[in-house]
């Protein structure tokens, strides 16, 4: 009896121990499952690029919330760790060092813009990380890093592809214009764009008769526009940031610019507040863009995303329409997320291999990367502003205010030429 009682006690005790061990394992498993995947990045949340940086962050947070509603990545919730780089490239290396060495993030993505992406590259390359990047122009030309993936649809030869459409449209006019002026801000992105414009202009047989840069802190652009006007240039290619773009467009109107084509790379004309303020001054300008409301660009998921963005952007002092950058800020995380899910891994070499060989379905359409991490095929749109009404934001959310002229695959109308009536 005693033996039987002892046996019962021993069985009960071992059962309790086994149950405890099992429950411990479960708790441990649950804890591991709940541990978030941390994605680290720097972002321009103050300073000159903050307008775009904050809009990008809103889009990224929409993706994070969307993915977490679907049980996260690999069954783990996604968490962001990010710091404000204050639009100061000098802060970027320190931020990525902290993200990797102190915060121990699992994945990294870039800040917004060429000037903020380039300084992160040496650190990312040393750690051999996959680096989805957001709107860097030709950053990898100098680094040749095989784990760099750039979401802006610049194309395989970014510097050249960026302005190819603008000059091709000019070359197609009859009679073909002969002379070109190139004016660019003294900043890396604009200088890259100008270098590409120079190459395209020469290749397509134009004569460059004005080729200058200007400091981004310039206050008045009328002297520059007058100097260009004095050369008699027929085609004017401008590479500038938002405040400068506004200054140049206003100066062109005030001076009565007689050019046949104006535009190219005026950053800022994609932003709703600037579009609304400039109004009819935008008419006939041909400029780059990446997405506009057009039947040819109605990709699956884009409308739903824009609705969410426009709701989230209310009262935050960012672009209320979000056509330019936000869809791509969402898409570069879609690409990363799809790669993680497909490889079921956070292994950087597996992710990189998968990202090189796959065509991703995103809100900005199909994305396929080339060898250098740029889009395999360019989709830099050249759009023309048409019949813009003063002080009317809604028109820019509708089809027709910006007509897609190039590439032919996405074209929604023909060019109005010349620019000056």
């Amino acid at each position: 009896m005693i033996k039987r009682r002892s046996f019962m006690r021993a069985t009960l005790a071992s059962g309790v121990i086994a149950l405890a061990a099992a429950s411990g394992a479960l708790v441990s498993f649950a804890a591991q499952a709940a541990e978030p995947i941390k994605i680290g990045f720097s972002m321009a949340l103050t300073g000159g690029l903050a307008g775009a940086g904050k809009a990008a962050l809103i889009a990224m947070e929409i993706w994070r919330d969307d993915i977490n509603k679907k049980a996260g990545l690999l069954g783990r919730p996604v968490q962001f760790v990010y710091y404000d780089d204050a639009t100061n490239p000098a802060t970027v290396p320190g931020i990525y060092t902290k993200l990797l060495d102190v915060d121990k993030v699992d994945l990294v993505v870039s800040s917004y813009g060429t000037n903020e992406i380039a300084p992160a590259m040496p650190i990312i390359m040393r750690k051999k990380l996959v680096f989805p990047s957001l709107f860097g122009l030709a950053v990898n030309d100098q680094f040749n890093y095989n784990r760099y993936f750039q979401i802006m649809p610049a194309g395989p030869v970014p510097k050249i592809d960026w302005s190819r459409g603008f000059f091709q449209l000019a070359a197609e006019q009859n009679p073909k214009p002969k002379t070109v002026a190139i004016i660019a801000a003294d900043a890396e992105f604009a200088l890259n764009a100008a270098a590409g414009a120079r190459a395209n202009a020469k290749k397509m047989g134009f004569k460059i008769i004005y080729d200058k840069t200007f400091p981004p802190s310039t206050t008045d652009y009328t002297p520059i526009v007058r100097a260009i006007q004095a050369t008699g240039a027929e085609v004017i290619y401008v590479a500038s940031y938002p405040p400068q773009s506004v200054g140049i467009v206003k100066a062109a109107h005030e001076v009565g610019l007689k050019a046949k084509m104006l535009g190219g790379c005026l950053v800022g004309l994609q932003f709703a507040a600037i579009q609304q303020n400039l109004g009819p001054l935008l008419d006939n300008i041909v400029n780059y863009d990446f997405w506009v409301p057009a039947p040819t660009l109605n990709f699956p998921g884009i409308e739903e995303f824009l609705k969410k963005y426009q709701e989230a952007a209310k009262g935050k002092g960012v672009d209320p329409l979000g056509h330019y950058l936000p869809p791509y800020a969402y898409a570069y995380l879609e690409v990363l997320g799809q790669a993680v899910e497909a490889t079921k891994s956070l292994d950087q070499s597996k992710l990189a291999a998968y990202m090189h060989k796959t065509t991703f379905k995103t809100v900005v359409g199909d994305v396929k990367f080339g060898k250098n991490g740029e889009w395999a095929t360019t989709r830099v749109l050249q759009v023309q502003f048409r019949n813009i009404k003063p002080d009317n934001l809604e028109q820019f959310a509708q089809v027709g205010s910006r007509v897609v002229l190039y590439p032919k695959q996405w074209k929604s109308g023909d060019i109005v030429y010349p620019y000056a009536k």
Partner: protein
Amino acid sequence: MLSVDLFANAIVAGLLLGGFYAAVSIGLAITFGQLDIVNIAHPAFVVAGSYAAYILNSEFGLDPVLIGLLMAPLFFFVGIAIYRVYYAAFERTGQESLSGLAFFFGLMFIIEVLLIMAYGVDYRLVSAPYIGQSIDIGFVGLPYRMLVPFGVAAALTAGIYLYLSRTFMGRAILAVAQDRLALQLMGADPVKIKQFAFGLAIATTAIAGSLLIIIGPVEPSLGRQYIGRAFAIVVLGGMGSIPGMAIAALLIGVVETMVATFMGPSWSPAVSFGVLLLTLALRPSGLFGRK
């Protein structure tokens, strides 16, 4: 490329630009030039003035210049309050040189962050019927976007100059800059005079801010672009001289524009700062400074 009309347009554009620079720098000529206060936050106040113009223009459709004039008294009292803090914390204890500089640096960042928190980081612009229009006099084009700021700046500069030279309080401000002790011996309170002068300087930023947003879009950190230029103009003019500041602003404006037109715009800052260095080498006290 050198032609009479291009030359004339460059000169006129430079004068118009210089007028705007004078509006931005005049407050600094008072604080830095006359009160010896290194108010590095001065351009941040100008941007705050731009935001005031943006808010009232977009809400009520008021003209930006009118808003600048209406906001000037409010900015005046803000300036007085800031000087009280500065005086109590630094000047009274003789720590104004380095700690005071840090104070204004901090103030600049606080203004920027407050603007970001309140209005976000998107570019802000104003609407007025004259923006984007221009008037031609012969072959010289005058964009209203630059002409209006020039006119307002000229009136502001003349007004401040007359006030400082013709009124009791104005002369007291000039006196406190020259000999604080002598002023005290005459029964005047230098602190109250400096407080008033600082308020006056900050009041000018409301007007300069309204001119800035007429010329182009603003965002909270835009003021940083004007720190170097505004200080350079005050130094070139001869610390504290209002006519000197105005002439220096016009000179910098004309030099920048001429260089942008005939040499290339990227040379403009180098040449205009070269003019500053050359002037200081030949005349260390600036164009109109006392030796």
